[in-house]
């Protein structure tokens, strides 16, 4: 987010800890990331028809993902970080990206960077493009 000018309202920010309910391992967050990523088209648009998602997602999960994405559509700029997932809305663009462990460990992708929605959009597009080019997860610098 950009720094507000004097007198301007501040952005709303909430940091919290995500903890598993009993018996759930880290695979739950990975599944959430997968569901969200699948629901957000690579071009940043939400598909016309809801993505049915992988067969193992139940309707409660699919609906909750749809509502999350809808809620972000109502924002100008927003970042939701639910590691390994980051969902970003900036201007008219919406991106979702699952960070690989290598990307997550990269100093260039520290939380300080994750606060800027616009920068994140650029970064995610770049990561996706690089991944598509099968260059593998290298050491990326923010532009």
């Amino acid at each position, binding site marked *: 987010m950009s720094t507000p000018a004097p007198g301007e309202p501040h952005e709303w920010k909430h940091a*919290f*800890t995500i*903890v598993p309910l009993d018996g759930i391992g880290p695979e739950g*967050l990975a599944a959430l990331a997968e569901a969200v990523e699948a629901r957000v088209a690579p071009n940043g648009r939400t598909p016309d028809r809801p993505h049915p998602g992988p067969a193992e997602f139940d309707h409660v999960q699919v609906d909750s993902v749809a509502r999350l994405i809808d809620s972000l559509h109502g924002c*100008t700029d927003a970042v939701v970080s639910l590691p390994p997932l980051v969902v970003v809305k900036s201007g008219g663009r919406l991106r979702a990206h699952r960070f690989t462990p290598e990307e997550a*460990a990269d100093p260039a992708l520290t939380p300080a960077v994750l606060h800027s929605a616009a920068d994140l959009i650029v970064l995610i597009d770049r990561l996706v493009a690089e991944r598509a080019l099968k260059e593998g997860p290298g050491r990326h610098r923010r532009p």
Partner: protein
Amino acid sequence: MPTLDVRLLGPLEVRIDGAEVAVPRGKTATILAILLDDANSVVPLDSLIRAVYGIDLPKDPDTQIQNAVGVLRTKLGAARERIETVGRAYRLRIAPGELDLLRCKQNEDRARSLRLEGRIEEAAAAMRAALAEWRGPALADQAGAAVESIRRRYDEHRLALLERRLDLDLELGRHSEVVDELRQVAAAYGTRQRLTALLMRALHASGRTAEALEAYAALKDRLADALGADPDQELVALHTAILRDRPAAVLERPVEPPAPVRVPWLAPATLPRAITRFTGRETEIRLLDDALEASEDEAGLAVVTGMGGVGKTALAVRWAHRVAHRFPDGQLYFNLRGFDPLSDGADPAAVLAEALVALGVPVQHLPAGLDQRVSLYRTVIARRRILVVLDNARDAAQVRPLLPVAPGSFTLVTSRDRLSGLDAGDGADVVALNLMSEADAWALLVRRIGRTRAMAEEEPVRRIVAACGRLPLALTLLGAWAARHPDFSLASLADRLEQTTNVFKVLAAADLASDPRSVFACSYQVLGTRAAQAFRLFGLHPGPEVTPAAMASLMGGSVAEAEAALGELAEVHLAEQPREGRYAMHDLLRAYAKERLTEEVAPERRTAAADRVVAYYIHSARAADRLLTLNGEGIDPGGPGDGVHPEPLADAHAALAWFETEYPVLFDLVVRPGAVADAAAWRLAWSLAEYMVMRALSADLHAAQTAALAAAERTGDLLGQVVAHGYIGAAAILAGDKEGAERRLEEADRLADASGQPWAKGFTEYGRAALAAKSGEDAPALAHCRNALEHFRRSGERFWSYRALAGIGWHSAALGEFAEARRCFDDLADAVRDSDNPLAIGNARLGLGFIDHLQGRHDAALAHYAEAERILVAGGNLPTAAFARELTGDARMAAGAAAAARNDWRAAEAVYSEFGCVFELARVRARLAGPVEDAAAEDGLIVVAPGAAHERVEAAVREALHAFGYRVREAEPSNDEAVR
């Protein structure tokens, strides 16, 4: 006495009364360094030779070293006596204040204690004082391989102390103050990862995160260049945490591998009560005192030998109490029963298990083998000053595994055998305990009968003392008898005593000093009928201690009669009462009791009494099993029979205590061929099975059920074979042998089919469910529980039906089939509402709570768990009540109340520990060991630009997380906020 001031943490320096002493470099200085390194301990001459010369020995190395020691003594002048010759060894005596190394260790120990007490500031100061003893590299001005080895060890230790001091400084928030020092030390020890970790923590906490990351990168390069290695896992984790900008507090945890099993520092005190009227034995006590003094800083060992009844135990216990204050780390007592006429004596492995538990080792961490137990025992007591009394040892082999080897410990062994093996091989001081002197024997008797009476009948007293052969046990018995009969003439007693050998012809030629049976006979003869019967039956009882109920069963009479009889035996010292409601007998008396039984009681009556006591064990075990596990409804062993009185057990605590005390006897009855009739053997094994499962005694369970299987096969009892195979399968599950368990359950299933009994089929299906559940396979476990329920219902057996129904509910819930799970637990609650089965009622509540918990309704879950716990506590099902508390902790943790959750887990842990519930204990300790949640926790963040409805985003995030099995935990308020 001259004062020494010796320093080796730097150049070697020796001062005597302030005056410097020049110790010649080379051999002499090396010997001094080695003696200082092992200050106050004995250093064998051979060790000195090896250290000084290595393999390149001179012509007469002994003399060379002895000469060098002579030079050293000369140099020490007035303090020459400090170097003692101990056989072919030397010892340098030096007080802690006289040697910098010992002062350093004192401060180090103090720092550790203060740190544990949370007094960080003082701990850091103590650690600084420890480090201040160093004036440079250890033995900086000396050379040679031996000195080099000592130097390396001490310098490494110095570095470890420095790290700990810096760690304490970081704990105190002195981050910026220590950065420069850390930089210097980390640069000096370039590849030492712990120092870099401390530096990274200090930099990050000082707001210099970039430099912290640089320090990591630099170390990474250094490691790659120097060693071709990567940073270790802990350092990588620290690096990642700094990258993620975790708060400094998270990083405060020292980067150290987790300790394996922490053994709480318990100081056991298991000495029995000392005899109040102990008389004489001053010489022997002084000899034992001397042995203790001589063994200072070694593992001391003394053996008291003497004939039965001469008072070895009394002396050992008396002396142990006398010197107990010198063993602040504990005093252990074990009766090895080496001369028990009815058993082979205590198994060293079992004694070690008892010792380890007394020293704080959790039951589930006891190794199985004798060697492993010996190793653990020696490790646990390695630095403890502990006194061990091993009473009634059979031979050296029984004693050796139990001997502590750590300096400062002391072992006192008593035995009828001289234990020459210990004398020769282990350097034991032997104290021979002979018959009492005339004067001591007289004093012992007079203390019991009173001086006035003794003076009035001086001659008879002398005759009694002579008739008792000055044997303390005999004098004690007769003194007790005479005291109980104050009007009885002592002259008549003396007459009678002198005639007893005629009464008991077997003793015609007996020498009283070597065979005290005539004395026993005197006490025995005057017992009342019931007490005499009880005395004889002691010789038939299978265990070392007897309760009134067990004695009543042996006698075939009432418990009140038995209690009165035992009371009479205790009053005349023919039996002891080690604790309330339990009676024991000296092994000599027991042997005599056995003789009397054989000679005076007809075989058929002996057999009937033996059968009754076995029935006592079977029915008591069943009653205890029901109280502990509610098991045992499956097979009705019939009524206890006439004259059999099962142990009256009030609650689960009493049941547990009874099982714990009688376990060796019960186990022996099951596995010893012919101890119990075949028809009873497998039932007894079954009553013991759930206790063994609870304690995870897989090897014992396997042995007991194998014996039970053989018994059931001999009688052709198919049901017994099914149960035995099933529990052998359970033993395999406990041992992690899945294939073995499957094979046994298949065999059980085949036999269950052949038996045509639905309960047997249900039992094997339930076993299969347990096997699947153990592997975390909820779906097959659920299917087997369903099958089991069907069979149990057909058999009309309630308890096992409830068990299967609860299993269905639990596995359904785990699989997310909440409707099915709820239906099961509702059914269970309906079925048991009006029953007297608190375990089933409580389980229904637990299940309903579990469903609410999984679905995020924490308040509802907590209400169910609380009600379940109340019901289970009221019903005495304490381990299951502890499970309710554990689940309460889970629900509280899920609701974000971490501190309350940990309290619940600790409460559950205490009960699991008390009842020895091995798996449950491991599970709850895993929860307590670390923030389990945090292991899988992630930091989430929502940032929304001004103007947008952030509430909607926030709600959607929470909903999505919940749908995928997560929840949001807010940062816990600080203490100040909590106070407000």
